[in-house]
């Protein structure tokens, strides 16, 4: 390859602004009554929390923003929500489902 790509693991932080790459598709599967994430040779079944987070992964909201939104929506302490979201997004980033 003429231009070697920088290939390092992305570490998700509170300031990260996660988004979903074009080839990752979050869809509601009406027939099966559930949300799904279509990915290369994978189908993920996100739970309700993951769906709520992923809907806010638009490249505009930071992880801190997302934590605030969900903290008020679910009436949960922001630091607890924030820790959960960071762990979830790191896992999704490692799987290539979100970029941050």
């Amino acid at each position, binding site marked *: 390859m003429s231009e070697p790509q920088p290939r390092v693991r992305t570490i998700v932080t509170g300031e990260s602004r996660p988004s979903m790459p074009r*080839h990752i*598709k979050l869809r509601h599967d009406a027939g099966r009554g559930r949300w799904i994430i279509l990915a290369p040779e994978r189908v993920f079944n996100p739970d309700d929390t993951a769906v709520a987070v992923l809907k806010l992964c638009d490249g505009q909201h930071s992880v801190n923003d997302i934590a605030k939104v969900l903290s008020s929506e679910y009436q949960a302490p922001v630091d607890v929500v924030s820790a959960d979201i960071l762990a979830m997004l790191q896992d999704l980033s490692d799987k290539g489902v979100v970029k941050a």
Partner: protein
Amino acid sequence: MNEITPVAKPQSGPACSAPMSAPLTKAEEGAPLCARAPVGMLCELTHRCPLQCPYCSNPLELERVGTELTTGQWQDLMRQAAALGVLQIHLSGGEPTARKDLEDIVRVAAEVGLYTNLITAGVTLTRERVERLAEAGLDHVQLSIQDVDPENADRIAAYKGGLAKKIEVAKWVKEAGLPLTINAPIHRQNIQNVPRMIDFAVELGAGRIEIAHIQYYAWALKNRSALMPTREAFMESARYVEGVRDKLKGIIVIDMVVPDYYAKFPKPCMGGWARGIVNVTPSGRVLPCHAAESITHLVFDNINDKSLADIWLWGDAFQTYRGTLWMKEPCHSCPRKEIDFGGCRCQAFALTGNAANTDPACSLSPLHAQWAKVAEEESHAAPPEFVYRRMGAAKTVEPAGA
């Protein structure tokens, strides 16, 4: 989050009440179709291929070009699949790019909302064609390699200069903005290069690599003694993969398919027969798995005669081993029966003569010890010459048996 991989398993949701332990009965006919629809559809668009890999998953009897479905028939099948509830399609072959109408098929699949995956050897692609496929709505490319050593790769595929071409193709795929998976079929004649294959995939910018130990059906079964690695070589490569997977976390996803000759329990083949995956051959035969035609007493329907939904739900080949009621002992009373579904029906048939027997990959199979011994002996003997995958070649050599 539940991850469904590599073969997706349909999960029950509010709309899905159909029990999967039994073949479907007509009483369920009124239930929503999508509730028990396949998640994935593997489309063998053609059996033509410039490569002759001796482990090809196509049947020994290859289908000829004159019998292939037309563009319109494949497009109609895409519409039927989406309506049935299929989510992902895998465009495979043979070499799917041998079909000049691949873009036209991809376009319709994308329009009806299917996630489209191209499974290619890459050697016939051009930059322009990759761009056209991306424009048509292709979602992902899986590019196979035979080895990272160019001479050995040429020898395995019986094709000159393949690796250099694949490196170019990988670059075009990335430039077109498409995600890339490298598929590396592993056997005794390339297993020593597993670490280099992973490095190679990282350098190419792949997001994922499949370290796909050969599964021994069809051509691979015929060539088993030329392909079977020793248990020691397999264990060494598996240990390497487990170690490097963590180091490369967030850089590349490494999936490993293990050779079931060295496993304790069988693989849940296809995620269970007729549960989540449907396969369509070049001529339109609809199969529960790509190797199913090796079970000689099954009757397969063709998309020319019946709808995809009708075949999936009621086709004889789908109903025969759907669920768990067909099982004999030791499967019948086994607590794992809905985990691995007794393993692979094709392997059970090929090696025991009865597809309803436990897959000999299972340590509970009475034939397991004998079967494991075959792998032990073959992998330590000098490898014979390959029987290359080409029309008629299979007839020149006696079939391999257990």
